[in-house]
């Protein structure tokens, strides 16, 4: 078995090329089924007022980048929220399931994109992923399925979840 442990050098083109790594794990529909199996969903984007935005920032200590939040009410109680976080090198879409009393039921990463060289701050670069199907996202380095070596920390997701909990308290609960 150990004879398989062989270092496979890659062609020079492959060594230079990958500047982005992207995986789509779940579409909105799949994420809903994964977190709330058998439930139905009523979607409505919630627009935040300036005051609400400030209140969320104050309560969570995290900046609110967008005025609108994609929210679905779940049959039988609970909420399904799709949110995005942007880090230094990562741009991640994730889904959060909240129980009827506002506690986190489950978090699922929907799309993970990792890139270097500053594209992440470029709105246009990010827009190319929005609403894309799994096929189009996976075009980037689809042969790379597993990477060994330290991955980015999930701190931005942790912050994002803090912000969502404040969002629930301020904009959703009542």
């Amino acid at each position, binding site marked *: *078995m*150990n004879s*398989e442990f*062989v270092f496979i050098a*890659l062609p020079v083109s492959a060594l230079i090329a990958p500047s982005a790594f992207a995986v789509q794990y779940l579409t909105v529909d799949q994420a809903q089924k994964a977190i709330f199996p058998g439930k139905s969903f009523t979607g409505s984007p919630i627009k935040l007022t300036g005051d609400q935005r400030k209140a969320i920032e104050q309560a969570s200590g995290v900046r609110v980048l967008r005025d609108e939040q994609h929210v679905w009410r779940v049959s039988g109680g609970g909420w399904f929220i799709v949110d995005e976080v942007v880090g230094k090198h990562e741009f991640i879409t994730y889904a959060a399931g909240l129980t009827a009393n506002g506690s986190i039921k489950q*978090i699922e990463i929907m799309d993970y994109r990792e890139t270097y060289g500053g594209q992440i701050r470029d709105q246009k670069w990010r827009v190319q992923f929005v609403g894309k199907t799994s096929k189009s996202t996976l075009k980037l380095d689809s042969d790379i399925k*597993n990477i*060994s070596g*330290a991955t980015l920390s*999930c701190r931005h997701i942790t912050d994002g979840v803090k912000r969502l909990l404040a969002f629930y308290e301020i904009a959703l609960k009542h």
Partner: protein
Amino acid sequence: MRSRSNIEVRRCRPLLGTFVEITACGRDERFLARGIEAGFAVIATVNRLMSFHDPLSDVSRMNRDAFPKGVKVHPWTWQVMKVSKRFAERSHGTFDITVAPTLTAWNYLPRYGYQFSPTASSRDIFLRRNYEVFFCRSLIVDLGGIAKGFAIDRAVDALKENGIECGTVNAGGDLRTFGPTSQLIHLRHPTDPTRIAGAVRLRERAMATSAIYFQRRKHRGRYVSPLLDGRNDQAACKLISVTVAAAECMTGDALTKVVFALREKAAGLLAQYGADALLLECDGAPSWMFHSSCDTPDRTRFD
């Protein structure tokens, strides 16, 4: 083409401070999803028990109270402590879970106002049979260098117990594959995580890579990293990467830290654990490779 006989389900959640991805292959999507759920559940348990940041975790409880009175912990925490202590002995202190004070000084870990003696080491940790942990000097532990590997191993157990025959658990770049098919695992370039330096094919085995590309920072004018040599608290600062393959991920996870410090001198320890190692230099080229002659390494025993 994907046929019904070979579906792959892949899920990712934020856990253990990083992204944990579980992939399972088989026939029935719901069956696979159930197995994956069980895998995430045990990782969440390990996360809860061994987090340095959670004040209710076993690690925090030990850091507060194992000196002087002793603390009863979960059997899993006890096992990881036991294995950590053994790694410290066998690596002559190169791997040491008591380096946390230095990590807090460099802001890799929060301080929390713990008291500790600067010369304490793993030798000052005592484990009683009733899952009680006792520190005979004031010290703090961080299981960050080994708990991830342990969590991956327990997740693989959970997937198998749920009837999954083939899959991969990858937690922040440490991973383990099981089942009949081999996986191509790409390795990041040691100086530039943007690039891929090469790949290794893996089957029925775990692999961990340590490098400092994301973590190296300046502290008081010199570079530091969270990869410490427990013998002298010196941080690894060279932009190399160390990959270790072993039967269990916990072994691989801990051994990467030892190889980082000892390089070729770690060969004896690698052989003891039936592990293979690969060292990539700053230019991305392999400079040392170790093949373990032992083909069927024992599972780590917990006693």
